[in-house]
């Protein structure tokens, strides 16, 4: 559906995007994650045809965007960062403008009706955009992006600057849209990706540092860290057979510790259980540590920083 190959974009001396490649298949909802200034917006602006890349290519439905802009643009709906809108037009006139340029002609009224119902803006159609709240503006931006019912949606930070309730509403809306469309959405808020996407691409300083299913990513980076709490007469050092032992605490004779397996993400829970059973220990707790994407994200972007240093 979308295929990005060795994309590079320079702004003068600064390289904003440094050789990014990824594929997005039909029906995927992909979160484009990274700190501010990572190159998310630039990449999206290239995909939508707003910017030209310094080098590399982007294929939308197997067509190179550098060859035929106009027809490709019809298959993409784009919500730019900060939702730029024509403040002095009212909502209907704005949607009417977009629909006219997209040559929906006869279907124009129906398209505006459908998009505004889906985005919940039917009751503000006659209000000037400049007077709308941020939540409504965002909905108008989304309505504009889906008015021609495109197979691909590119949403740049769709929830930034909204209050918690508005954020939930917009996420719900994106989820609903994601059921039938291919969505690429960028954000620097992690829970957003966890809630709305089924795949995440982490980008940092213009390079992709991770690209996988959310569960896989969590799994891969959690590295199978296991927490154990037991009561018994055995020295915590005995657990070194499973990997690196740390965080040893003792309270009322209960010993708790953390094991980082020597071989990455190997599941050592069963082995730990058998060991405790054989050594006649009272096993009070045994679980694999689940880390939030937040930590994973910090770790991923940190690694890059360390490598650079």
């Amino acid at each position: 559906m979308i295929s990005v190959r060795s994309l590079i974009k320079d702004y003068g001396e600064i390289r904003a995007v440094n050789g990014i490649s990824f594929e997005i298949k039909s029906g995927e909802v992909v979160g484009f994650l990274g700190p501010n200034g990572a190159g998310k917006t630039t990449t999206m602006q290239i995909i939508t045809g707003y910017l030209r890349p310094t080098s590399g290519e982007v294929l939308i439905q197997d067509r190179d965007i550098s060859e035929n802009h106009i027809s490709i643009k019809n298959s993409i709906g784009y919500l730019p960062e900060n939702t730029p809108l024509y403040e002095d037009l009212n909502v209907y006139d704005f949607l009417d403008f977009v629909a006219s340029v997209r040559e929906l002609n006869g279907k124009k009224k129906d398209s505006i009706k459908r998009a505004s119902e889906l985005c919940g803006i039917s009751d503000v159609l006659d209000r000037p955009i400049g007077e709308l709240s941020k939540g409504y503006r965002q909905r108008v931006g989304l309505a504009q992006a889906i008015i021609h019912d495109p197979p691909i949606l590119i949403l740049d930070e769709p929830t930034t600057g909204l209050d918690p309730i508005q954020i939930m509403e917009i996420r719900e809306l994106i989820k609903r849209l994601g059921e039938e469309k291919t969505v690429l959405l960028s954000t620097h808020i992690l829970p957003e990706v966890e809630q709305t996407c089924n795949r995440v691409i982490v980008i940092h300083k213009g390079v992709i540092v991770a690209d996988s299913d959310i569960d896989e990513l969590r799994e891969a980076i959690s590295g199978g860290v296991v927490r154990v709490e037991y009561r018994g007469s055995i020295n915590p050092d005995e657990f070194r057979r499973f990997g690196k032992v740390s965080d040893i605490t003792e309270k009322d004779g209960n010993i708790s510790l953390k094991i980082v397996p020597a071989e990455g993400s190997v599941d050592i829970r069963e082995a730990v259980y058998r060991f405790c059973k054989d050594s006649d220990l009272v096993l009070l707790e045994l679980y694999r540590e689940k880390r939030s994407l937040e930590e994973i994200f910090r770790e991923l972007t940190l690694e890059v920083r360390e490598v650079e240093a």
Partner: protein
Amino acid sequence: MKLRAILKKELKHYFFSPLAYIVTVIFLLITGWFFANSLFLLKEAEMRGMLDILPILLMFVIPAITMRSIAEERKMDTVQILLTLPIREGQIILGKYMALLVFYSTVLIFTLFYPLVLMLLGRPDTGVILSSYLGMFLLGATYISIGIFASSLTSSQVIAFITGFAIIFLIFIPGKLENIMPVKMQPLIEGASVVSHFENLLRGVVSSTDIVYFVMLNILFLTLSIYALREKGK
């Protein structure tokens, strides 16, 4: 269809914007004053008093109206919406240009009051009035294309205004310097200046040279605007 959509959107901007009204009122006040001046003080049934100051007056008025046309789209980032829609840069520029022509023509319609007064008071030369209006339209259109070009270079309306003013000044000033230039160079300067072509039309002389001059300038600056818009410059 696409062109019409741009035209419609732009017209909404201009006819709902207070700036456009303020500028129009100022324009009518100043032209009215110069018109009345020549009418009552010099007792001439002519529009010359007002027409003579027009190239200078429009030098301020038109960049004030055109400065927003693209600079504002850049400033508000709506240019991202515009340029990702299935529309060519040329259609965007042409739509904006046509909207400004419609707006400017509307202002010109208000000035029809002056020749009407003349017709009531005396017997003005209708041919001269008609060619003068052709001149006013072509002069305005040329300034508008320059204003759009200036606006396409920047995201700041102030810079767009000053740039527009400066370019217009450059094609205006040679006509005023004509007399201090060497005789050999005078025809060249006359050919380059917007004033001499405008004055031909004010005298009632409609020649293809003058019309081609204005049309070429329009095409030149609109083409440059298309390139400037395409190059985004972000």
